């Protein structure tokens, strides 16, 4: 079984966000970069499926040459080889999906697993866009995945409960938080990853136009909440909620 996973590079979500002086975007100067946490869940799930069914895990990332670091992280976790789509374009969800369509046409994976959203732009679109462009089925927000022959049974985290779907393969699965606990790369894993193949492609070579459909015009910081009162007792709290906040 061949599984394709994504490893988006983004600023460590624990970092305090700063804006560029001209408010054109987020200032990432000097920041630490990581693999999108939901993509880590996707990679982990792919590795577990490979351990069970055997096969190959291909790690893809799109962006400037530094995204190869995130591909190597996926390879150090246990991925078999990488694909770097090299571009310095401002890649929106739609461009990312159209690039991945071409990569998938070349690679012909049985299943594609990716994070349900990237925690930088928080759009949560690529998996679904990809499924529609390919004419495939999708199971988004997965908390449990099992594969039997040419179908995947996926439990999804939806409003009001858990839904189970059957998806014919090839298909798209997007990973939610509880899908698994991603493993850490071991030292031997990191050493091995350095020797694994990472193929470089470009949007041009894939025949993909990188004009974005959604552009960020400016960014701002939402008003912060300021610290309120420290209360000494539950009596004081109830009193204030009643008479000052008037919410009881």
């Amino acid at each position: 079984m061949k599984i394709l996973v994504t490893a988006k590079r983004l600023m460590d979500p624990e970092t305090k966000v700063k804006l560029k002086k001209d408010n054109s975007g987020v200032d990432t100067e000097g920041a630490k970069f990581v693999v999108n946490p939901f993509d880590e869940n996707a990679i982990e799930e792919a590795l577990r499926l490979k351990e069970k069914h055997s096969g190959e895990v291909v790690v893809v990332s799109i962006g400037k040459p530094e995204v190869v670091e995130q591909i190597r992280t996926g390879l150090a976790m246990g991925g078999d080889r990488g694909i770097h789509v090299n571009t310095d374009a401002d890649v929106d969800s739609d461009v990312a999906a159209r690039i991945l369509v071409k990569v998938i046409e070349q690679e012909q994976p049985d299943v594609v697993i990716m994070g349900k959203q990237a925690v930088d732009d928080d759009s949560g679109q690529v998996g679904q866009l990809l499924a529609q462009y390919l004419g495939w089925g999708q199971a988004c927000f997965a908390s449990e995945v099992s594969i039997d022959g040419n179908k995947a049974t996926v439990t999804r985290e939806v409003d009001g409960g858990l839904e189970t779907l059957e998806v014919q393969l090839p298909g798209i699965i997007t990973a939610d938080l509880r899908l698994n606990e991603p493993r850490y790369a071991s030292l031997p894993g990191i050493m091995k990853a350095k020797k694994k193949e990472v193929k470089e492609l470009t949007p041009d070579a894939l025949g993909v136009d990188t004009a974005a459909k959604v552009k960020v015009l400016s960014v701002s910081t939402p008003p912060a909440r300021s610290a309120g009162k420290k209360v000494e007792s539950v009596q004081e709290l109830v009193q204030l909620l009643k008479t000052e906040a008037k919410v009881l």
Partner: protein
Amino acid sequence: MAKILVVAEQYMGQLRPATLSAVSAAREAASKNGGDFAILVLGANVGAVADQLTGYGAAKVIVADAPVLERYLSESYTKVVTDVAKAEGAELVLASATTTGKDLLPRVAAALGAGMASDITSIEGPNKFNRPMFAGNVIATVEVTTPIIVATVRGTAFSAAEATGGASEKTTANVDVDAGSLRTSFVKFDETKSERPGLTEARVVVSGGRGTKGDFEPINALADTLGAAVGASRAAVDSGWVPNDMQVGQTGKIVAPELYFAVGISGAIQHWAGMKDSKVIVAINKDGEAPIFAGADYGLIGDLFKAVPELIDELKKAGVGA
């Protein structure tokens, strides 16, 4: 012909309340940018939901009622929404950012060749919207450059539309879905059974975090006293103490109740992203340095296992709850 199409959401013949936030956004877009809006209802035996929606000032309510639509599946729903959007010449397709809206609308965008803005919090122009990024630490103004625009609407940013009276025209959509061609099938739905109000609709929310050490009893008891919904931090979900659909935060539910209790929650950035628009926030935590206190309106430093039962007693003395 309606320029704006709202995709309503129903479950088993009941309107999902979040739909009314999308209706509000549609009204606002129509009044700011001109044009009118239609509401599309999909499902099986959804006549009553359609009737209910005729009272919200839409130019028309379009009903796609067919057995094949009984259960939501992204492929079948995408086909119908796309067909209707094309037939209507819709320039803006909206739905609430529920898990169904988030699952469906990107597919619709791909099918229409549209650009999509996720989780919009305001309408800044015909093709400009504000939306949160980076766990709500950044508000981005985005421009969608395509002739057709698709967007999901953040429920906490648009109040639920009130019925306006009057009766929209009702029309029937052609449902052209080949059930045999679908690559996904519904297996089952395990509904979370709860007598409590839904998290995104409740007036009061009580959330528990790592400080509960997995014992949600005090949280549940406080919620029951207040008639509140129960939420949780990502740490509590990660620890397997509560299901993920209770998660409040960047990657869970976004809530903005009148009163929010964060109990044993440290207040990580990603939790704030889910509740910072609450009107009043109360924090109870034994760590006085916890970041939750930096933004809470009222903070009580103390052990939740002692403070919460006392609080329940005090609330009852004050005539709140049962």
